[in-house]
């Protein structure tokens, strides 16, 4: 499966020059959309993602309401032009599964019991996709939720680790995802390291898995710092504008 592609060179560098524990470049901006209650624009390597939050508002139709708490619905969507071969617009099985696991991860940290019968809608739009969009999307969603002032126990954050050319590395890039041995996207609540999302494809020994999980959590913490800075910047720019 690895063909002639050399995912790690003789100096231990990955194809894009990163070391095993180095994240791709992450850029986060909070509060970028006018209409949404909270929003975020995020670039993570070649991924470009918007997230927008609406709510809490009354859940409609009524039969979707939970009398005890708010429902958090994430909707992950890829633009038709976000991938090499145009994707047909609208949800497919993959995006619906991702929407489900992201919704579940976010619901854990939102203080949903404060808003019975309500809906909190999180829209994630992937405009450019280059491996790791679910982690990028969830991380953007965390910032948008904070920007919307939704009460949360913590700001959720995600990062993947994986195995390429026999080594455990963080945050797989496109070729690493295609030709690597395993991918392990993880989302956590960074205050407690509780694991909110976890999926694994590929082949890892238990020992490798433990190492990869630790590395992914480490990546989550790094991304978390960038999230916090973005939220702070937005807050200060608003204060500054006052």
């Amino acid at each position, binding site marked *: 499966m690895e063909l002639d592609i050399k995912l790690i060179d003789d100096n231990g560098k990955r194809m894009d020059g990163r070391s095993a524990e180095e994240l791709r470049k992450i850029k986060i901006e909070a509060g970028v*959309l006018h*209409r949404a209650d909270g929003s975020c624009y995020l670039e993570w390597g070649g991924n470009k993602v918007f997230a927008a939050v609406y709510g809490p*508002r009354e859940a409609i139709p009524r039969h979707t309401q939970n009398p005890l708490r708010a429902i958090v619905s994430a909707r992950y969507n890829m*633009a*038709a*032009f976000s991938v*090499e*071969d145009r994707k047909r*617009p*609208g949800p497919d099985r993959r995006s619906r599964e991702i929407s489900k696991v992201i919704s579940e991860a976010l619901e854990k940290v939102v203080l949903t019991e404060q808003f019975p019968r309500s809906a909190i809608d999180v829209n994630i739009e992937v405009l450019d996709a280059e491996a790791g969009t679910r982690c990028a999307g969830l991380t953007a969603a965390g910032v948008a939720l904070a920007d919307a002032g939704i009460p949360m126990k913590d700001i959720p954050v995600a990062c993947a680790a994986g195995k390429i050319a026999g080594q455990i590395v963080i945050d797989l890039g496109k070729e690493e995802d295609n030709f690597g041995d395993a991918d392990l996207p993880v989302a956590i609540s960074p205050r407690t390291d509780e694991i909110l999302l976890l999926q694994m494809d590929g082949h890892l020994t238990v020992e490798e898995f433990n190492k990869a999980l630790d590395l992914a959590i480490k990546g989550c913490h790094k991304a978390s710092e960038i999230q916090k800075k973005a939220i702070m910047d937005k807050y200060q720019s608003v204060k500054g504008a006052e």
Partner: protein
Amino acid sequence: MSIVPIIKRDYISKLAEQGKRIDGRRFDEFRKIEIETTVVNKAEGSARVKIGNTQVLAGIKMDVGEPYSDSPESGVLTTAAELIPLASPDFEAGPPREDAIELARVVDRGVRESEVVELDKLCLEPGEKVWIVFIDIHILDYDGNLFDAASLASLAALSTTIVPATRLEVGEDYQLPLKEPPISCTSVKFDNFVVIDPSLDEEEIADARLTVATDKNGDIRAMQKGLNGSFTKEEIQKVIRASLDNGREIKKQLSECTGK
């Protein structure tokens, strides 16, 4: 079907009687327009357009496919618009509804009927293989006047589109061949006032809408009236004049931005 508070309508109408708009513009004045091209990498061409707070992203993808049987030597153009819930609490996920369909069709006709994309230059093998051009429009932020923002974003994206011939192994990459694009300007009417480039507040109280696409010669290339109000002939002529004036300015800005 939201019922706009009567108080808002009254307020906007009263201002209009004094010749004013809520954001301080003249009746025939557009909001500030920003055009940014090549904003995404996977697309063959892309552009983000802001008109005030309204923000639209258009991306172009190209593929090789079969021509329509009634135009075997012509490329194929297809336009889709999604009113994704990211952009407004009133947009719903799911298959496109009437509003999104009208938007996509008006943008599509604007591009197609004025022959902006030179489809006859996109034939690879007559009757067998031609280029297919996909315009996909994503509304990111909705504060009124989607028609003009979507149309302008599509034109700007097309202007920067590189035909991916290398990737699809049918030759060398080259610039998508384009003609001069007409510029679409939309006005709405409420009470008896007609204003161009409506903001969301103005759209919500509007009775009638008229989109006019004009070209650099000052000719009309497409029109679309919408909403359940009416226009008089005189009002239509006024709208055409304002569309010509603003269209000229917007064309200039588009040319500067895309270098064409």
